[in-house]
């Protein structure tokens, strides 16, 4: 039950992109087609989960033990940056087909603030998650990111064919649509 609550809350109620504004850059950058949106989401699920597990362990067994919590920001970003590199190298060897699919998205993920944001949120004392809960939270957040991204890409594909006023063409209308999507997701806040 507890896990179901974490999952629903992370995917719908506190959606990373639409409610917490994390990972907005890739959300607008690679959402022109559903195909690329799915690829990016896959890469994010992968990296976010691994990054959260590693940073969570580091926080609990290194930073907290030695009371050097102020090193959190530097440690986490370094872990994520090297992890992305590592994932890239391993994928290339182990599963070339998956690497082909996710390849171009992996370097972009280092600067995806959703990864660092979720890693930081997962170790927040207010939630008091254990490792398994933190992992579930990371996976669910990433799925929430993917869900928002794929819906938005679908909307944008349709928008291509619409007659939009000149000044609103392109980015501005995309923002307004994202706003309406966020409004729709606000409807889920009744669940929690």
């Amino acid at each position: 039950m507890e896990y179901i609550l974490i999952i629903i809350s992370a995917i719908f109620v506190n959606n990373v992109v639409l409610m917490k504004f994390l990972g907005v850059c890739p959300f607008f950058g690679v959402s022109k087609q559903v195909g690329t949106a799915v690829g990016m989401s896959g890469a994010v699920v992968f990296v976010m989960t691994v990054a959260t597990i590693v940073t969570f362990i580091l926080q609990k067994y290194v930073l907290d033990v030695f009371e050097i919590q102020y090193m959190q920001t530097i440690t986490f970003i370094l872990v994520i940056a090297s992890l992305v590199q590592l994932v890239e190298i391993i994928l290339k060897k182990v599963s070339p087909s998956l690497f082909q699919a996710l390849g171009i998205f992996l370097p972009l993920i280092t600067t995806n603030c959703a990864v660092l944001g979720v890693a930081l949120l997962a170790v927040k004392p207010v939630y008091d998650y254990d490792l398994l809960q933190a992992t579930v939270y990371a996976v669910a957040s990433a799925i929430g990111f993917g869900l928002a991204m794929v819906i938005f890409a679908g909307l944008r594909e349709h928008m291509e064919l619409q007659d939009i006023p000149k000044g609103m063409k392109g980015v501005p209308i995309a923002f307004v649509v994202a706003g309406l999507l966020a409004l729709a997701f606000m409807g889920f806040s009744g669940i929690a």
Partner: protein
Amino acid sequence: MSKLKIFTRGFFSENAVFVMLLGLCPTLGTTTSAVNGLGMGIATTFVLVMSNIVVSLVKSQIPDKVRIPSFIVIIASFVTIVELTMQAYVPDLFEVLGLYIPLIVVNCLILGRAEAFASKNKVSDSILDGLGMGLGFTMALMMLGAVREILGSGSIFNISIYEGDGALVFVLAPGAFIVLGYLIALTNILTKKS
């Protein structure tokens, strides 16, 4: 390029938020009011100027292959300084901005300027570039925050300007997207005319 142009392009022709669409997460996340936007803008400007100075100073020492990780470490150090300073001196603002302060590290604007400008230019130009880009970013955040505050809570800089509560939706998440969309549209129309 003249010094003046390096400084001023961050405000209009290459404004980080309205034109380049960089650093969108803090732009949307922290602009629930004009004051919050201003606070976030100043914190980002500080990190941007300091990291530009350091990157520009050490640019010849860093091997090309490890420059991105090196830049990230430099930026992360200054973010930690800002984090600790804000926690000590402006705890209220620190609470409101919360998660977005450590996230300055992954603000693409800062890494972007380090890579595109500071790593190729001398220190004095890099300071001007950092200041211009940072203040342009601050201006954009303050504008967005002001519009959201006026529409959402009927006040500006915490000074009430009309009776009633305003439309709450503008303080919440959807309002951030919609207001920014219209501000970008406005910028597009204004810049195309001139």
